[in-house]
């Protein structure tokens, strides 16, 4: 179970208002994406949910309980891979679960294999490419046991092909385990392909400018990307984003 709800969240850094009146929900087992211009405050929203700092106004609830300023209630993948240079890939991937105190070596090894990193279990981060590091950080968040996963641009460093593979993998995992996902991206297509709902943020101070409910049937596969309907949706969201900047 993971029901996230943000109500009237506002946050300023020094004198600049970054977020204002952000309200949205992520329902149990739902996949929600956040789209917004660079610097609009997407990562800041994640930091607030993760409890890194308190919101100036508003409240954040997970399953009815306030988690504002409370750490450790989400599985998290930061925008930069943030792997620990002295840990091997396997130890890095297990870190999230290690902190909570529930490691599963077998499951970790399987995940590494599935992410196409098999054979690199004992490699150190400096021996991995940018895309491989990103995949490792992605698995680390999947292996953390919290029911809400927050992914901050998880696939931005991957080539088109690997990215599609990882997206499909994420979808299959998600439909299998039914965790709630909050997903930040710059890529409209990615948001459309993955999400139940897409939220578009306005420029500073960020508000939820518009919310799109994506009606595509699940399970989805890549043939969806080329349909007329998909392109229509893409256009609609593109226009929404263009009006911001």
């Amino acid at each position: 179970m993971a029901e996230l709800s943000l109500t009237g969240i506002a946050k300023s850094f020094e004198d600049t208002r970054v977020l204002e009146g952000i309200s949205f929900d992520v329902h149990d087992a739902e996949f929600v994406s956040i789209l917004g211009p660079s610097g609009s405050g997407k990562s800041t929203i994640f930091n607030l949910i993760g409890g890194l700092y308190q919101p100036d106004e508003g409240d954040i609830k997970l399953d009815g309980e306030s988690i504002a300023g409370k750490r450790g209630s989400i599985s998290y993948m930061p925008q930069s891979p943030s792997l620990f240079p002295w840990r091997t890939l396997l130890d890095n991937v297990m870190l999230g679960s290690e902190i909570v105190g529930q490691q599963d070596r077998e499951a970790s090894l399987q995940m590494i294999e599935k992410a196409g990193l098999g054979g690199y279990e004992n490699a150190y981060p400096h021996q991995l490419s940018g895309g491989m590091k990103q995949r490792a950080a992605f698995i680390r968040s999947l292996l953390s046991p919290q029911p809400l996963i927050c992914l901050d641009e998880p696939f931005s460093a991957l080539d088109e092909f690997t990215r599609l593979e990882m997206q499909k993998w994420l979808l299959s995992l998600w439909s299998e385990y039914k965790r709630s996902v909050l997903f930040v991206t710059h890529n409209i297509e990615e948001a459309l392909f993955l999400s139940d709902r897409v939220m578009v943020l306005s420029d500073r101070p960020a508000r939820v400018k518009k919310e799109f409910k994506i009606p595509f049937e699940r399970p989805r596969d890549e043939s969806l990307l080329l349909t007329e309907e998909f392109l229509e949706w893409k256009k609609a969201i593109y226009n929404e984003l263009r009006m911001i900047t």
Partner: protein
Amino acid sequence: MRNIVQKGWRPLLVIILLFVIWEVATRVFEIPAWLIPSPSQVVDEGISGWSVYEHHLYSTILLTLIGFIIGTSFGILVAICLHLIPTVRNMFYPLIIFSQNIPIIVLAPLLVIWFGFGMLPKLIVITLVCFFPIAVSTLDGLRQTSTELMHYMKMAGASNGQIFWKLEWPHALPSLFSGLKISATYSVMGAVISEWLGAKEGIGVYMTLASSSFRTDRVFVSIFVIMALSLTFFLLITALEKWFIRWKSKGVENSG
């Protein structure tokens, strides 16, 4: 390994050249041995006099090791305390820097007055000498944690203990080791100086005896023994460092 051989031959050549010049100079100018002995005389004494200074050497090694272990443990412990309690750090950091400015040579006789000729004043001297480099470098290593990794740890809900042991401590290790290397060489010097204060045995004693009886060759032997000791100590720490920080060394070489 091959790298060391490739890079190492040039400095080695210079050292050999210096020895050759020294040898030739002492012969050509007929410098008396009590003034400056030739390298070959020093080597002779070093080999034939082994039984004379053997026990001195062991005593110094023991003193150095005990002092080094106490001094560095103390330094690391203080660094950790200062790091974990910021108010204490602000209060005591200037004091640590002062500790480096204490003139050991002046302090040493005082320590003898206070604590006698036993082990204690010697260990205090070595501890003082080791303390500063290790404390400062450990403290710096602990403070300069990557903000990105810290961000991740906090978001993942890590406790302060987890942040320390999983992030700050391993992050400080490379810095701690560079402090250890400096402390290791200092501790040999500290041991010899403390033996000058008055001791029954030790390279410092051997050296004092040698110079007061104009056995200059023996003074040179002790100089070289001290250098060899420092170097061995340094190399040992470097080997330990290679083992503890194996995640780093390779990467730097490859990407460089």
